[in-house]
């Protein structure tokens, strides 16, 4: 039987990869994928604890996260397409319209 701590470590590793990827990549698509990684890291954590505590609420929450992630992907990709149509780039350094 795999102990809980392994799942936790896996979840942290996946989340950390996501954070690193989000902060280091310049490509919008890659940053987007990094966000998905962070979300899934959290999901692993939730489900592991749900199993450990024998409480289904964690799994329900994970389903919610997946559903929200799907919606977020749809909107996020739409934003990316809109950005590409306007600026012909997927590189975030080229987009500085919000500079103060």
């Amino acid at each position, binding site marked *: 039987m795999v102990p809980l701590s392994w799942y936790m470590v896996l979840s942290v590793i996946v989340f950390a990869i996501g*954070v690193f990827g*989000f*902060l*280091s990549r*310049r490509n919008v698509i890659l*940053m987007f994928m990094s966000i998905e990684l962070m979300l899934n890291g959290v999901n692993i954590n939730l489900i592991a604890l749900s199993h450990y505590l024998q409480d289904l609420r964690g799994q329900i929450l994970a389903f919610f996260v997946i559903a929200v992630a799907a919606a977020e992907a749809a909107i996020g990709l739409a934003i990316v397409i809109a950005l590409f149509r306007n600026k012909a780039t997927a590189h*975030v*350094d080229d*987009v*500085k*319209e*919000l*500079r*103060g």
Partner: protein
Amino acid sequence: MELQFYHVLIPFLPLVGFIVNILIGKEVTRYGAHWPGVLTVAGSWVCSLFTLRDVLAGHTIDADLYSWIVSGTFKVSVGFLIDPLTAVMLIVVTTCATLIHIYSIGYMHGDTGYYRFFAYLNLFTFCMLMLVMGNNFLLLYFGWEGVGLCSYFLIGYYFNKKSAADAGKKAFIVNRFGDFGFGIGVFMVFIAFGTLHYADVFGNVSSIAGQRVDFLGFTVDLPTLIALLLFCGAVGKSAQIPLHVWLPDAMEGPTPVSALIHAATMVTAGVFMVARCNPIFNLSPFAMDTVAIIGAATSLFAATIAITQNDIKRIIAYSTCSHLGLMFLACGVGAYAAGIFHLYTHAFFKALLFLAAGSVIHAVHTNDIQEMGGLKKYMPITYAVFIIAALSAAGVPGFSGFFSKDEIIWSAYASHSSVGKLVWLMGTAVAFFTPLYTFRLIFLTFHGTYRGGHHAEAHGHAVTHSAHAHPAPHTSGHGAHDAGHGSHDPGHDTHGSGHNTHAAGHGAQGSHHGEHHIHESPKIMTVPLMFLAVGAVAAGWVGIPPILGGGAHFAHFLEPVLGHPEFHGTHAEEWAVMGLSTTIALLGIGLAAFFYLRKTDLPKKLAEQFSMLYRISFRKYYVDELYHYTIVKPTLWIANSVLVAITDAKIIEGIVNGVPGAIGRFSQSLRKIQTGIVEHYGIFMAAGAVFILALLYFMR
């Protein structure tokens, strides 16, 4: 008797007329605006007649319609008190209002603000009726302020004319002084009685007799304090000394307004209020003496001014002031019924005087009686009604004014107090001046030869006249206005700017208003004049005193409300007093005839001989100048050099500009972190999350 629907309709019908005209007057009713205007007021008049019938049948109604304000022990309702005093006021207000509304159809014909005029006139009628019908002090106050507001609207009706706008402001601001005292008086009534309803206040009035209260550090008699504070309001509204200055300037309004608001109804509200509050006044001999003396002083003061004025409407305005003073004189000696009687007869003959003057102005397009003369043959109806009104005002036996004026003078004499004797002497002096100035006006206007038609001179004179009339700041504005209007009716205050649609037509007639332009006014104006003339003659017949074979029905009718003063005097004394004042009045007419018909050069010589007295009277005892230098100028100085220069420029603008400035500088430094680069935001977020986690971890 219960409150009937027609009692409720009396005030609310004119309100309906107002709402219709103010909402759709510009687009829909337009030059038919008199239909809702006149019909609703006429409806009120019919309802008032039914109400009078109820009151004559002995009914008194005090009923609440609606609970207006309920806050703890403070309860005020919208309710009506219908008793003999209210019934008299209802008849006065609705009769005059109906006739004047009809007259206005002719007088205001073709004016661009036609619908607006009728809307305001209806709103005024509504407020005035609420004032007289209300059964508590707050409704009285509501009506009081409402008529003041309408007065402001209508004085400044020709608002693009600076002198009219200024006169409106002056009326409103001067009234504020009086109403401030009146408002405090109402508060004091509430403090003393715990209620504002007439029935509860006047029913318990003896409970405050002799009470003393601290007021502004002085210990004063409570009834005196309340009475004098309430009288403050009356002084403002009814144009008594020292707040009389607004009434002559209020003549800038259209003439029907002067007739309705500034002669027949609104200005008499003060007298009505004093009569209504007579139980409070009766408790304070000092307040009564004050009322009598201020009334008598105003009466004499205004009468002496009226003798030298040259503006037809201002003369009548001072006459109104003078007659209002007489009414207060009567109230002050305890003869409330005589005061209300004079209010009632005065409403008819003074409205008639004003409307007849309006008819004259309509024909000759000037207000200056020096530009008139010889109008008798062109305007026979106006001349006839003017004579009737003047005879009534002068107190010639047989006419309304005689009975009421005689009643007042007799009451003053018979009150047998030293104040009563003093005001009797002053009242008798007024009885001399009234016919003098009224007939001077008639002889200069209707007799002799026409002196108008010199337009250039009229222009110059009008400007200098207004320089006399107002302290310095008014002059330039007025002059500019005249210049702007070119040859069209300079300096004349009723048809100046309102007749925009007619301006071209008048201009085409050239700068010369020759005699051939003068004609009698249309029927729509002369018919109301004739009805009022009947009132001016016969209205007083309901109050003929017993000594002349009458029954003094008027005083008996009002006795349940106003009480019956205890006057002692023999019949011989009564005949003597009446004979004296009548002789003096006839003497006044005779003197006026001598001066202005026979020896027409004599007045000028006398004016030169006694130039000092003449100037004092002509400049209205310099009261306007006094106020200009003691109140207006210091106020403007404070406004300009303290409020504008320090409070406004330094303190308020300092705060208003300083706060955003500081925020702006701070955000200038903050905006540097808004780079627009997504990773930077990501790093801030991540760092923040780490920081919070660390905080949670270490703080645990």
